[in-house]
């Protein structure tokens, strides 16, 4: 069988890049890390990197290939989309994973590249590209959830700096973050136009972080309190009052990164095909079919939904080649992704019966304990990043042209 490289050669202009990428990856990926994604989980928090992980992170960071399509001038890989695809293929081929990630890569970086000043880009982008700075998102407040634009955290103009007072909540990874990109109010007389986009150092005096314990027992989110926090004026992104526009753009990046979830988890449960797990717990009938006919059909509906979603992600990716960024259709995909993640978790718990509801300790397998937590955590998916109801509002307004009720 011909390898991908042979198929590319010699007329394919990407063949040279493929060969370069292959050599570089072979030389730099520590052998022990292949196929062992140590990706720093946003949910469980960072762990101290092993020497291998540190070396791999540094190599990828120096090369800029953790953010392959970002401009090389800011520490990115400077690759074309086609080259980035080749890099991804070559990484997948040898089980190399991307050690550079988090909110800086998914949301803040792309937004700053679009709206930041030259100085801001020079200061922040290369450090995201090298995984040196961990960012968190300061958007929601106790009184501003779905109605995000009603946020109250105030940044008072003090001449050479802003004095920030207020509270953020659902700050993902706030307890581990170095910096926060926040939406703040700079004008109390206007709703949307009174919002600005401000970068806040989490080590500043007056910043206090309290993890929130969720129904799943984990604490991936925090309440973050800001009391008389001084923020330099240079940390304003865009103009005063432009925060809502910039913040919404960032949310589009967030949705598009979140919508992949339902597909990427595939159709596996506890590392096995769903059908196999179901048969192990529930048994089969004389014809070898899953014995619970009702559960069987609901599993099939879920399988089909997942398959249709993956085909749609693929189609959207092909169609988006001509567009510059995520479209409003992302809202559709976010809702379907959430539905699939939640359905799979509910089905998993149902398949396992009482064993799928274990909390901790003896008498449960690791997969069973994980299933309980996955199921509970999954309830967040249709709430964060704009609830499913908010996504439906967006679809109705932006895609279907349905106007607001007066």
């Amino acid at each position, binding site marked *: 069988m011909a390898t991908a490289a042979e198929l590319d050669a010699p007329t394919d202009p990407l063949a040279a890049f493929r060969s370069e990428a292959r050599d570089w990856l072979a030389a730099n990926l520590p052998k022990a890390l292949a196929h062992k994604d140590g990706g720093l989980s946003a949910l469980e928090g960072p762990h101290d990197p092993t020497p291998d992980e540190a070396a791999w992170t540094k190599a990828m960071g120096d090369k800029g290939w953790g953010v392959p399509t970002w401009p090389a001038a800011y520490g990115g890989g400077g690759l074309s989309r086609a080259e980035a695809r080749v890099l991804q293929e070559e990484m997948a081929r040898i089980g190399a994973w991307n050690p550079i990630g988090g909110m800086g890569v998914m949301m803040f970086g792309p937004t700053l590249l679009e709206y930041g000043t030259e100085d801001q880009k020079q200061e922040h982008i290369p450090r995201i590209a090298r995984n040196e700075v961990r960012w968190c998102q300061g958007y929601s407040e106790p009184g501003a959830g779905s109605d995000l634009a009603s946020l109250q955290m105030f940044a008072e103009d003090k001449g050479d700096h802003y004095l920030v007072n207020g509270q953020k909540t659902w700050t993902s990874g706030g307890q581990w973050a170095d910096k926060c990109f926040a939406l703040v109010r700079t004008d109390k007389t206007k709703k949307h136009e009174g919002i600005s986009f401000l970068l806040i150092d989490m080590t500043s005096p007056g910043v206090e972080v309290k993890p929130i314990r969720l129904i799943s027992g984990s604490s991936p989110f925090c309440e973050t309190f800001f009391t008389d926090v001084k923020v330099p004026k240079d940390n304003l992104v865009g103009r005063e009052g432009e925060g809502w526009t910039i913040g919404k753009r960032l949310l589009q990046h967030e949705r598009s990164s979140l919508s992949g979830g339902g597909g990427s988890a595939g159709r596996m449960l506890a590392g096995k095909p769903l059908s196999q797990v179901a048969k192990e717990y529930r048994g089969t009938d004389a014809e070898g079919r899953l014995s619970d006919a009702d559960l069987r059909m609901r599993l099939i509906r879920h399988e089909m939904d997942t398959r*249709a979603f993956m*085909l749609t992600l693929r189609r959207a990716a092909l169609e988006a080649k001509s567009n510059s960024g995520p479209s409003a*259709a992302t809202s*559709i995909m976010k809702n379907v992704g959430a539905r699939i993640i939640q359905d799979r978790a509910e089905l998993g718990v149902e398949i396992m019966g009482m064993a799928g509801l274990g909390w901790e300790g003896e008498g449960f397998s690791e997969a069973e304990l994980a299933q309980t937590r996955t199921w509970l955590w999954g309830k967040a998916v249709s709430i964060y990043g704009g609830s499913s109801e908010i996504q439906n509002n967006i679809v109705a307004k932006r895609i279907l042209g349905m*106007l607001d009720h007066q």
Partner: protein
Amino acid sequence: MAVLTEEQTMLRDMAREWADNESPVAAFRRLRDAAPAAGYDAAAWGEIGQMGWGGIVVPEAHGGSGMGYLSLGMVVEQLGRNLAATPLGAIGPAASAVVLGESEEAKADWLPRIAAGDVVATLAVDEGPIHGGAIATTVTDGRLTGTKAFVAESDSAAAFVVAAEDGLYLVTGDEGVTRSPRRMADARSHAEVRFEHSPAIRLGGPELTAKVVDYATALVTAEMLGLAEQAFGVTNDYLKTRVQFGQPLSTFQALQHRMAKMLTELELMRSVVEGALEAIDANRSDRDQAVSLAKAVAGDTLKLVSREMIQLHGGIGMTDEHDAGFYLKRAAVLEAMWGNAAYHRERFARLNGY
């Protein structure tokens, strides 16, 4: 929309333009009222023949363009948007049966005429009202005997591709053939067809039957996609014009969310329909799964959209004067044709180890 070649894009745009200009829903309404014996619009079919759409899946060597099922599906989708009453959807899989079949004589005799739109060919498989039942039709000494139920476009068909116990046969001419029309809610051509010692040419075994039934099913999902998109679009337009409580209905959030949900399902439907057509063109081994996925999702989605079309139009949607009923009735026939959503979920379940 799948990523299309320039040729495919031109074909799709041409089909859309033709359907909008020459075959609006008003044309279907006239046909329904006139109820011609053939069950389709002869003048429109003549134009389609001229444009060569009858030969989209017929190889160039036999007078077609050999563009394949994604191409034919896009045309069928565009015609489906306006409920264009043509036998195009029935002809494709019947032609494929001859193309893939073992009779060179049948290819030479029939493919050029099918491609030119001179004759109508159709599949005759089921023997009862539910797809997937036993097939009792037999062939002895080149003569076929059996009764086929709900054969689409059979009022005008000159060639039948007939499933027998041991495979697929081509029956042409009228010898031993009796058609009994079955007037159905969609006002299209369906009939029971009885074959008694009709001369039959063998095309292939049961695996060929399974293959062309998948082809026919995939094309039906393309028509369903056209219906669903148009039913949805018409409903969205209506909600913006109908005023109650001093506001267009489209400003009510309860309705906005129902529309957003339908659009979501339509996006998934398009993906699976195109996926099935592409699986056929690529001759992929998981064609059966791709087709069952498409028919099940298309069935559920068209059911949702066509029923909501009536409900969201309110009283006007219940009147014969409005087109909503046409969409509902054709939708229900297409949902049942070649197996409903439940049938295809069961098939998909078996193919996936459940």
